[in-house]
Structures are given as C-alpha cells and as structure tokens.
C-alpha cells in the first residue's frame, strides 16, 4: 500500500519533471555533448599506445570509453547545486512542509533528465560507431540488463553522496565547495579518465575499497564485456548504498533542525 502510494507520487513527479525537462531539450543536448570527455581520453590512450601497458586491445579500450560515456550520461548528478540554490533562495521551505521528502523531487528531476538525454546519447554513439566500426558489438541480454542495474546503482551512490553533501547547506551556505573536493577523486578514481585496472596494484587495492570505481569503471567494464568480477562489483555497489542511505537520513534529520528558512 505504502509502496503503491510512493510509486504514484514518484510517477507523477517523474511525468511532471519530464514535461519540464522537455522545455530544456536544447540545453540537454548540449549537456549530452559536453559529456564526451571519455572520447578525448580514448584518443590520448590510443595515440600514445598506452593500452599496451595494460594488455587491452584498441577495440576493447574504445568500447570501454564508449560505455564510460554511456554510464556517465545516466549517472551524472547535480543535486548539491540545485539544493544549494533552492536553499539560498528560500524555495526549499514550501517543499519542507509537504508530506514528501524534497529529495524525491530532485531524484525525479534527475531521472527525467536521463530519459531526455537518452536519444542524444544514442546519436553520439551512432557517430562513434561510424568513426570506429571495429568497436561495434552487441552485448548479450543478461549482461545488458545487469549493466543497466549497475548503472542505476552507480547513479544511486552518486545521488546519495551528493545529497549528503547538499545537506551540509543546513550548516554552511556553500556546500557545493565541499562537492568540488569530491570531484577530484571522482574524476581520477572512477574510471572516467582511465580504467582502474591501469593503476599500480597497491593503489588499486585501496581504490576498490572506496565507492569511486563503482561509479563508472565497474558498470563500463561490465557493459563493454571486459573481464570483471560481476557479483563482487554489484555487492560493493549495494553495500555502499546501505552505508550511505542511513548516513543521509541522519544528516537530513539533524540538518532540518538547523534550518533557518533564510530567503523566505
């Protein structure tokens, strides 16, 4: 019954946010294009024959970076910036006195944006295959489904991390500056610039204990068909969600006590 009600709320939120996102389709196309950093990295790797050092073929490497692009398209999160702005402008106040946690709104906003991005991401992939026909492959259905699940889990981890940071707005008005600190490990350790397998062994063992490689590296390797520990990766993703969710709930509950409703 409760889950039915929540689903109905989320579904309506999703529909409304999707209509809202369609108002910004040009911006979304530009955002999708702006996410092509993995293709630049692919170029750097192949032009310098760096893949030889980690025994990955050109084809597998290009598939990896294409999948990294896809995973990034469907797991990118900006909730800290939205919440910070809404908090400073006093827009959070009406949401706080509604019987739905305001983060559901942001959650729906992100999902709606991902749906809007999808066709643009496909177009970019189409052009990628035109220039790299040797990279074309069809993943089997099981792997494809697991990759979708893994990408969604990656999105959840990033959403929870940023939501925790966003809640710091209750103590400091500029929580986004803390997010910028997190951006550095996210960039280097997530697999966006280089597959984690390319790091030295002793660094890798530490990296795998953090949530970062499960944001892009694991789902991208899974989808591209590279060798990866599927069950281990999924367990780690779920584990991080179980660690982050109670932390978010605690910080949210403490933070709202500190809320001063400034700007409203």
């Amino acid at each position, binding site marked *: 019954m409760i889950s039915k009600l929540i689903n*109905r709320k989320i579904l309506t939120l999703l529909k409304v946010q999707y209509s809202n996102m369609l108002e910004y389709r040009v911006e979304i196309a530009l955002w999708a294009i702006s996410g092509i950093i993995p293709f630049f990295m692919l170029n750097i790797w192949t032009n310098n024959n760096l893949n030889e050092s980690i025994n990955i073929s050109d084809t597998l490497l290009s598939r990896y970076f294409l999948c990294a692009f896809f995973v990034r398209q469907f797991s990118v999160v900006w909730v800290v910036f939205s919440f910070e702005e809404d908090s400073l402008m*006093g827009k959070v106040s009406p949401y706080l006195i509604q019987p739905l946690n305001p983060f559901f709104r942001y959650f729906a906003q992100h999902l709606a944006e991902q749906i809007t991005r999808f066709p643009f991401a496909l177009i970019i992939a189409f052009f990628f295959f035109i220039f790299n026909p040797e990279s074309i492959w069809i993943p089997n259905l099981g792997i494809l489904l697991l990759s979708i699940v893994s990408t969604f889990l990656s999105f959840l981890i990033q959403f929870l991390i940023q939501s925790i940071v966003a809640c710091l707005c209750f103590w400091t008005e500029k929580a986004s500056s803390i997010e910028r600190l997190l951006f550095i490990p996210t960039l280097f350790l997530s697999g966006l610039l280089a597959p984690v397998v390319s790091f030295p062994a002793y660094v890798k063992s530490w990296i795998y204990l953090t949530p970062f490689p499960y944001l892009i590296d694991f789902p991208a390797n899974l989808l591209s068909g590279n060798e990866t520990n599927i069950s281990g990766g999924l367990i780690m993703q779920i584990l991080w969600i179980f660690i982050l969710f109670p932390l978010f709930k605690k910080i949210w509950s403490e933070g709202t006590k500190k809320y001063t409703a400034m700007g409203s």
Partner: protein
Amino acid sequence: MVQNIIDVKNLSKSFDISSKEPGLKGTIKHFFRRQTKSLKVIKGISFEIKEGEIVGFLGANGAGKTTILKMLCGLIYPSEGSISVSGYLPFRRRENFLKSITLIMGQKQQLIWDLPPIESFYLNASIYDLDKFEAKKRIKKLSEMLEIDEELFIPVRKLSLGQRMKSELLAALIHEPNILFLDEPTLGLDINAQRNLRKFLQKYNKETNATICLTSHYMKDITSLCKRVICVHEGAISYDGELDLLLKKLSPVKEILIVCRSEEDAIKLENSGFTVKNKIKNEITIKIENNSITSSLKTILNNFDIEDLFINEPPIDEVIGKVLIKKDYDI
C-alpha cells in the same frame, strides 16, 4: 465550545548571527576568527487560537511575525517553549499534520516556472494522496472560487503576478488544509487583486471553517479579514485582542466636519462647548469622543442650521503605526 487549535506557551527562538567589521582588516579578522552572537528574536511568547479564527499578526519589519509563522508550521525549530498545532508538535512534521496545514508566502512560489499551473496542481494532488477524480473536482471548485480558468494552461512564467498568486493559492489549498499560514499574501498585488484575494479568503474561511494566521503590511488585509490581532514588538507580544477594541483605545475621538448654512451658525457652534479643531468661514471641524457621537450629533442637528456633515475616521495605518513602535498595550 470552540476548541483551541493552536496553543503556544513561552515560545522563544534564537539565531546565531555572525558579524563583520568593514574594510580589509575586518575581512581578514572575519576569515580567521568569526565572531558569532546569539540573537533572541522571539522572547517567550504565549497565545492560543481557536478553530475557525482569523488572526492577524502585526509588527514592524524584523519584529518576529514571520519567525512565529515559520515555527507554527514546523519549518523551523523553536529554541524554548512549546507549540501545539492541531494536537501535533509542528517541527516533527508528521504526515497528518502536514496534510492539515499550508503556508503561503507572498512572492515566493512553489509552482514550476516553465509549466502551466495545472501540472503543479496535479503534482501536489498526488503528493497529498488525492486521486485524479478528487483532484479534478477540487481544482474545478477552487478555480471557480478564485476566478481563474484559461490561466491554468499557460506556463507560469507568462502569468501576471496576480494570476500567479491565485495559482499559488490553488496549489497550496488543493489538499483542503484546515489551518492556513499566510505571510504577506497580497505583497506586490494591485488593489483589485488584493480585494479579490481577501474576498476569497473570507469565503474559504466561511465555507470550511479554516483557521487563518496572517501577516500583512497592508492594513486593509487586516481590517477586512481579522477580528483579532496579535501585535509583535521586538519578539514579544505587545497586544493580543480584538482589533476594534485596539482601534477605539488608540483613537478615542472622531473628527467631524460640519458645514453650517451661515457663518453666524458656525460661530454659535464654535462657542457651544465642543472641542474645536479649526474653523474656516462656515465650515467647522470638531472632535467628539467615540462614546458620545450619537448624542452630540443629535444636539448639533437640533440646535444649529446644518447644511452637511462628514465624519472623518483617522487613517488606520496611522493608528496601527502607533502600536508597532510601542512595547505594551494594556487595554
């Protein structure tokens, strides 16, 4: 017997405020050693509000009216004291409590800017667990009461301020709350839009017996909606009672302009013992105490040849203005 729906006892709220001296030296000092002090903005106030009452909160800017409303609706935590609204502790924000209240802040909006208001209405309806049929029924009823129709389908960004405010009201009332917290709801609206909004609130209160707590700097909002006012001065209550009683106390006399048929009659009236404010030819302005207006007018009409007379009420803003700068009004 009408029940108390809001019960506030010894309520206080303090905020930590950081201060900075001007100039580069002040900035550097502020960077390394931030000085904060606790500022008590609400100082141990107590009051009760009965179900169905419309109460106006009056006070100068920064007096603490909005902070009181924010605590009543559970938006901010009180530092000391207790609040009970519909039997709930507001700051716990229980679902049933949230479904029974609404907060409307003038110029602050919850409608989605790029979409028509109808989308926000259906969204709110699902947040408050209303099914589509019920939501449709309520949107129809409220839009008729608010006299909005085509506006429901035009993107919010293209609506005028008055149309937006009406839509905001509809969005905030779709769950039919029985307690309304209104923080300057007519701010920025033109005279007609203000009047329509007041008419709507009166009607809503009459039809649903909803309790309304209102702050406004427009005295017309207060005088046409509220029988009772709570005056807040520097975080404390300086007056809590009937508005009429306050006005009588603050303005015990009325000015009456009398136009006599001749200047001789005006001179006779001037010397008949009334308090005269001024006299110009055959026009004379006298001051009469509120409780003797009928008898005094009777005497004047019977004994003098009068062409016309006008009773001048003192401007309400001027009268209320006196309350906003005084600590205590004991009536």
